[in-house]
């Protein structure tokens, strides 16, 4: 067994004149939970479809645990568990029958296939619905069936295309918990356009737009790029007067008043929170809310992807 990793080398996909993925190169190692972030049509799904062997790259290739996805597709596919977008499955089949089919396709035989299916059913709490046709299940259960088929062979690499898309908040929470549970010693790659998901699940994020890699960073690193990073927001009576006082502070670069909230941005390298707290105390302002901003991921995302468009 080679080193546990994904290595993409100038991976490209063209549809006629349209370049869906443009010479994407990256490496992912064990223990990483990588989130592909990007607007719709950015090339996230296409990249995943190439990694899993559903689409052939126009040029370039990728190695999954050292197996080339073009020259040694079957060996590469054996290392991967894949949840396609929308978690498609054979609707007329029962949950157990479907999982046994996937287990056999994954090389389990006879009783071992039944055991693998039973194991996946247990891990995803599908016990109550094993004999039900999949098409009669709720969306949350269908997604769990999709996850069950993806992990049935305990793959080293787990690739999931929008795993929580279209689920309600409880189901999202549940699916994220399951993914987090599975993330030990594996490589997990998810795609999403939900920024909260990257914060909740991933320890690495890649922003992709127009088929190209724009940013490769940790979620915390991404947030730190926000202009809101380390800013202080307060809700106060007579905000105009307070704003004029605060804008005189050497630590403040800029003060913005928006919808009753006053946001003070720090000068480079300066810390604001304590200074403002002191000022509030000294001036006796009636403050109803005072908070330190971590940064706003959606703002970073828009900023990065919009730069690309313009």
């Amino acid at each position: 067994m080679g080193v546990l990793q994904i290595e993409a080398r100038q991976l490209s996909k063209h549809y006629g004149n349209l370049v869906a993925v443009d010479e994407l190169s990256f490496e992912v190692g064990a223990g990483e939970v990588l989130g592909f972030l990007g607007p719709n049509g950015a090339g996230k799904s296409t990249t995943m479809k190439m990694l899993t062997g559903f689409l052939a790259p126009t040029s370039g290739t990728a190695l999954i645990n050292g197996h080339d996805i073009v020259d040694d597709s079957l060996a590469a596919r054996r290392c991967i568990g894949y949840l396609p977008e929308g978690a498609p499955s054979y609707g007329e089949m029962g949950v157990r029958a479907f999982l046994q089919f996937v287990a056999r396709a994954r090389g389990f035989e006879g009783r071992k296939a039944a055991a693998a299916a039973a194991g996946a059913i247990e891990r995803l709490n599908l016990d109550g619905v094993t004999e039900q046709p999949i098409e009669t299940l709720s969306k949350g259960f269908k997604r769990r069936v999709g996850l069950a088929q993806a992990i049935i062979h305990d793959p080293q690499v787990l690739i999931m295309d929008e795993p929580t898309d279209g689920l309600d908040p409880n189901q999202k929470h549940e699916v994220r918990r399951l993914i987090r549970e599975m993330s030990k010693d594996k490589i997990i790659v998810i795609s999403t356009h939900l920024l909260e998901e990257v914060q909740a699940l991933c320890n690495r994020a890649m922003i992709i737009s127009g088929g190209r890699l724009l940013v490769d960073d940790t979620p915390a690193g991404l947030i730190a790029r926000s202009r809101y990073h380390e800013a202080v927001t307060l809700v106060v009576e007579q905000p105009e007067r307070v704003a004029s006082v605060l804008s005189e502070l050497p630590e403040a670069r800029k003060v913005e008043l928006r919808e009753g909230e006053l946001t003070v941005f720090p000068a480079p390298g300066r810390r604001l929170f304590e200074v403002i707290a002191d000022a509030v105390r000294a001036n006796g302002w009636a403050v109803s809310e005072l908070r330190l901003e971590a940064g706003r991921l959606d703002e970073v995302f828009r900023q990065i992807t919009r730069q690309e468009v313009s």
Partner: protein
Amino acid sequence: MRRVAGPVLNVMRRELAGYFSTPVAWVFIVIFLVMAGVFAFYIGAFYDRGIADLDPFFTFHPWLYLFLVPAIAMRLWAEERRSGTVELLLTLPLTAWQAVLGKFLAAWLFIGLALLLTFPVWLTVNYLGAPDNGVIVAGYVGSWLMAGGFLAIGSCMSALTRNQVVAFILSVVVCFGFLLSGLPMVTDLFSGWAPQALLDTIADFSFLAHFATISRGVIDLRDLVYFALVITFWLLANTIVLEMKKAS
């Protein structure tokens, strides 16, 4: 061997189970049996001929298959593409060829089952007289082989599109061409300008001619090879279509 055949059988088993967990199987079998009966007894004048054989029964099989086999074949790949399960199937560690073969075998066995369920016709003719049962067995074999040819064409057409109606129409047209390639309406297009050798080749592609010899009770190796080649050719084409979609 196990590594090669295992995935094929696995896909085949899933497909077969799929037929019987939806109304598709029952609707197809009932319609096939009713139509086969109507053709044989009314149009084929089974009783009036006063001959104890199944000629009027088998004669209409090509025409029956022309519409019923594409109806079974149209969903093979188009449905997978529409529902997205094709992405699941083709990212499992099996080759496109194994998937194609598994699906084909399931549908072929299923049609074989429908064909076997026409056994009351065989009972009837044996009750009424003393037919040559060897000829009847040959007729069944030939009919099933021909169904396989239609099915392989339909499977390939189904891989071309996600729309089942388009898949159905394409298969009927191509099957019709293969069915009639020995008849004047096709050969006339070529006679006069094409060399005789080409004309003979085209005529040789006719399902009807090959089916006719088998159903007369003559199981000629050439006819068996012919159907085997037709099936193999279209299933290979099917696999190539899948690979092309992957690269497109």
